[in-house]
Structure formats: structure tokens, C-alpha cells
């Protein structure tokens, strides 16, 4: 029974599903750590997903696809930064605006430039030599038979954690998110730091989109993410603004999802509504038990005014 459900492929599926959440979540973490809430993630993901897909489709190169995604992510990220940092727009609303824009544009361009759903070759799964055929506990299948973006996502976690905690940039980001006035008084350019993190957030969101359209799914369709980006934002709160926290959240959420799919696949008689509901419920419950006081960035959503 249990071994019927907790198969290696379920864990492999968990890893795959977690990837977009990790990528988008890491970007959002940097943005929020510097004090900017970016609710537009899902829209940027969709744009990234589309441009990656379209480029891969016409050039046949997934790599070019990723580059295109990074480009569009950067542009949208800078736009977001301009709106929420320079124009100090209410971040809750502007984020939703950007989401709507991305949702609409990606679909529009899809209809104009592609029309009907097509599939691309995208990134193949890379079997890490030696590791990928470890039979023991299905380690090989679970960890070492994924597409490049999966590996990238998981490598970015320790990297992000290091940048945040052990580099001058990370120090500036944390300071700007906690007490921008103090950071400013110490000669840190608050605006520049926030532009950097928000732009990075856009890039990562776009990459997350690409990880769907040209790696995991290899197709594009209107609203391909169906709200995945919002879950990613939620997982940032789950992870308490720490990269490893994001990892934990993304894995938990994706694991429950993979399990519920497996349960219905092997025909266990669980009403599918409740199966689909499970990841959301369990994520909340987990947080109930995990909750100590959180170290939310003090200046989150607060625009910076010098000398106040």
C-alpha cells in the first residue's frame, strides 16, 4: 500500500513540481528581503514562459529560449521596480496590474504569433553520469534524471542563501529591508539595491515560467501557470524569507500534490476534490505547527523617503 504510493517516481515528480516554485520563490525572497512586495510574479512567469517557448519554437534552441525569458523578465522586473520604488505605487495593487498585463499579453502574443498549441523539444532530461543509475532507494531516478533547469533551481538555493547571508550585497539587501533610513545614512543607495532585487525577482519569475513551458511541460497555453505564481509568493511567507525555507515549502507542497495524483492514479477511492485540496490544507497546517515569531522584513511594502 504505502510502497505503492511513495514510489521513486512520486518523489521525482515532487522535485519536478517544486522547481517553478523554488525559482519564483527565490526571486520573491530577494525582493521582499529588500522591502518590496512583488505580487506580479505570476504575470511575469507567463511572459517568461511564452517568450521562452516562442523562441525555442522558432529557433529550435531551448537555450535561446531561456535567454529570451531572462530578457523579458529583466525588462518587466525593471518596470516593476520603477513602479513600486520610484513611483512608490501601492505594491498590492500594482502587482495585480502587472499580473493582469502578463496574463493578457502572453495569451495575446500566443494567439497572434503561434495560434494553436504546439509542443517544443525543450530541455531534455540530463542523466548525471554515475549518479543517475543509483538503484538504492531510487536515488538516481529521484534526484539525477531531471532537466537542466531543475538542477539550476536546486543549486540556486544554497547560492541565494550564501549571497543573502555572507556577501556585502546580501548585507545591504537585509539592511534596506529592515531599516532603509539606517542603510541610507550609511551611504547605501536604497533605491539601487531595491531596483536590483526587484529586477532579479522578475528574472527569476521569468525563468520559472521557462521551466514550465520549455522544460517541464514543453507546451504553451493561455494562463499556463494557472495561479502558480501566487502560490510561490505564499511559499515565501511559509519559508520566512529564507531560501531553505522556500525549499521546504516548495517540497512539502509539491510532495502532497504528487502523492494525491499517485493516489488517484492507482485508483484509491478518494474524492478527487479532497485529493486536490490536500496540498493547500497541509501547507497551512504545517505552518500552524512551525510558527514561531517570524522575522518579516520590517520595511516590507513601505516605500523609502529620505530623512523621515
Amino acid at each position, binding site marked *: 500500500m504505502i510502497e505503492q504510493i511513495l514510489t521513486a*517516481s512520486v518523489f521525482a515528480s515532487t522535485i519536478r513540481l517544486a522547481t*517553478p516554485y523554488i525559482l519564483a520563490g527565490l526571486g520573491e525572497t530577494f525582493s521582499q528581503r529588500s522591502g518590496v512586495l512583488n505580487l506580479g510574479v505570476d504575470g511575469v512567469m507567463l511572459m517568461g514562459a511564452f517568450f521562452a517557448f516562442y523562441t525555442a519554437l522558432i529557433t529550435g534552441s531551448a537555450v535561446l529560449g531561456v535567454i529570451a525569458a531572462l530578457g523579458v523578465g529583466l525588462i518587466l522586473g525593471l518596470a516593476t521596480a520603477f513602479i513600486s520604488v520610484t513611483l512608490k505605487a501601492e505594491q498590492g495593487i500594482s502587482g495585480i496590474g502587472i499580473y493582469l498585463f502578463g496574463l493578457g499579453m502572453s495569451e495575446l502574443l500566443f494567439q497572434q504569433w503561434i495560434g494553436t*498549441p*504546439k*509542443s517544443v523539444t525543450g530541455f531534455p532530461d540530463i542523466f548525471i553520469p554515475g549518479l543517475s543509475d543509483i538503484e538504492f532507494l531510487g536515488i538516481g531516478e529521484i534526484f539525477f534524471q531531471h532537466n537542466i533547469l531543475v538542477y539550476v533551481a536546486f543549486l540556486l538555493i544554497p547560492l541565494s542563501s550564501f549571497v543573502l547571508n555572507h556577501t556585502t550585497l546580501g548585507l545591504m539587501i537585509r539592511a534596506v529591508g529592515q531599516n532603509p533610513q539606517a542603510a541610507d545614512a550609511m551611504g547605501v543607495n536604497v533605491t539601487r539595491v531595491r531596483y536590483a532585487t526587484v529586477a532579479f525577482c522578475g528574472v527569476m519569475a521569468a525563468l520559472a515560467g521557462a521551466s514550465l513551458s520549455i522544460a517541464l511541460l514543453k507546451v504553451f*497555453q493561455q494562463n499556463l501557470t494557472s495561479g502558480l505564481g501566487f502560490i510561490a509568493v505564499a511559499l515565501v511567507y511559509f519559508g520566512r524569507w529564507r531560501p531553505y525555507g522556500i525549499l521546504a515549502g516548495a517540497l512539502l507542497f509539491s510532495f502532497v500534490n504528487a502523492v494525491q495524483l499517485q493516489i488517484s492514479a492507482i485508483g484509491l477511492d478518494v474524492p478527487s476534490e479532497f485529493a486536490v485540496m490536500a496540498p493547500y490544507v497541509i501547507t497551512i497546517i504545517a505552518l500552524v505547527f512551525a510558527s514561531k515569531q517570524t522575522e518579516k522584513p520590517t520595511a516590507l511594502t513601505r516605500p523609502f523617503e529620505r530623512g523621515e
Partner: protein
Amino acid sequence: AQDDVFRVAAVAPSATTDLAFSQSMFDALTLIQAEMGEDMFQFDFQDGTFIVDDAAVALREWAASGEYDLVIAHGSQYGTIIQELAPEFPEVSFAWGTDVNTFGLPNVFAYTAAAEQGGFINGAVAASLTESNVIGVVGPIEVGDAKLYVDGFKVGVAFVNADINVLVTYIQSFSDVTLATEAANAHIANGADILTGSAQMVVGPIAVAVEEEALWFGTQSSQADLAATSGVLFQVYRWDVILNDMIASIQGGTLGGESYVLTLENGGLEMQISEAAEMEEEAMEVLQSTIEDYATQIVSGDIVILPEAEATPEPQATEEAGS
């Protein structure tokens, strides 16, 4: 309408390019226009109105404009709107689906598809092609023509080989491609070498089939291009068949009161073999004949797919529509 141009307006919940439900209607109207010619037939189409109230606004405006001979609400969620709207505009003809309920209104057509029929054939053929004896199905919500298709498919499989294991996952969404994809992956992981499914999120599972070199059976629209060499057989909704009947009766002065069902018999359900599927000549011919064979048996009633209660209901004809 005043002039002799036949004007149609339609709303559909998803995009006209969804390779599924909405596209099936859009393709049908486009086809009719090609047949009758631009000067005789024109249509307005509003897609993506998954928000029921948005559809309501469009339908009401079209009805009120008086410019349309037929107003189509392509989505069972629009039934209530039609029920409210039709009595207000008795001179306008409405059609809605998928359902057979005309609410006893003289200016309402209802239409649906006996999806279980194509489902049965897809299932039977799939059963004859599977080597792993495991087949995976990805469905949206366990309702409507999606459920009929899946039920029919299961019966079809069992009809050929009761030992084959059909794995069914309803992901509770018509649009969540990611979930649909992982559901398909789960089926593959559990040994499936053939996949099928219904609704617009099947683009995900199709991509999985292509990737994993599994076979794909489709419904609603042809997904042959996307499924490429994995595609085998598609049940295509030919709404044009019944739309032509409706147009005829409207031009004959009957604005509704009748309901239509796409069946193999009336040609509304068309089984299309994928050209992309790499099959030898004779294999192709064999497949052809088996399909026709099943079709005739279903039409003749020799094969009863689902019990009365679970099958697509018989079309209703109300007395007004009688003569």
C-alpha cells in the same frame, strides 16, 4: 435579421484555439461559413468568457440588438442565462449546450454530444494496441461530456480486454496544464503506454505522450498536429451537422423547442485517424474497418455502451417543434 444573411453570435468559455471544446464550435461555424459563403453566413464569436456573468452580458446584448438569427451559448454553465433570456426575446432563436434541456421554450435549441460513443471506440482501439495493459486517463471535473467520454472509454477497453487496467485521474480543473502533465507522468510511471483525456489542459498530457512515446487518443477536437506520431484516434465534435439542421428549421420559421445530440449515426461524431501516426497500409485499413465495425454496432444498438441512466439522454422534441 432583415436581410437574407444568416447571422450567428456565440460565446464560449475558453479560447478558440484550445484544441478542445471551444475550438470545436469555432471550427464548425468557420466550416459553415466556408460552405454557405461570407455573403450568406456571418458570425460573431466571443471566447474566453469563463465568467458566466460576462457571457450573460454578451448574450443579452446580442439578443436585444435583433441583428442575429441565432445566439449560441456554448457551455453548459450558460443554461440558466438562456432560461432567463429566451422568454424576454421570443423572436430570437437561442441554442445552448451541452445539454438536451430546452426548458420547454419554443425559441431554445439544446445540443450535446454522445461522447461515450467515440469514447467507446477510442477505448476499444486503445485496448487492442496497449502492450503494458495499462492505460492512463486525465479528466477535468467528473461531469458532462468529459465524464461520458471517460466512462465510454472504460467500457470500450473492458469490451476488448477486461484485464486491462485503466487509471483515471480527475484534476478538478479544465485549465491546469501543470497538474494535468504530472497526472499523465504518474500514469506513465505506473506503466501506462497509452494516454487519453478531455478538456483544454490535455495539451500537457499530449506533450507527455510525445515525450514518452506513448500513444494518444483524443476527443472534442482533433489534436493530431500536437500529438504528432503519438496521436492515433480522435473523436471530433462536428457541430456543423446539427447547426445546419438548426439553421434550416430557423429559416423554416421554427425558432427552437428541439434538442440535438451528436452521434456516430448522424455524423456529428467523427472518428479521425491521425495522419501523423506511422502505420503500415494494412494496419491502417484494419483500424479503419474495426472503427466502422464498432460504429455500426453502436448505431444498430448491438453494443449498448452505458445503461440508460448513465448515457447521454435522448433528444427531446417538444410539441411546438413537432410538425
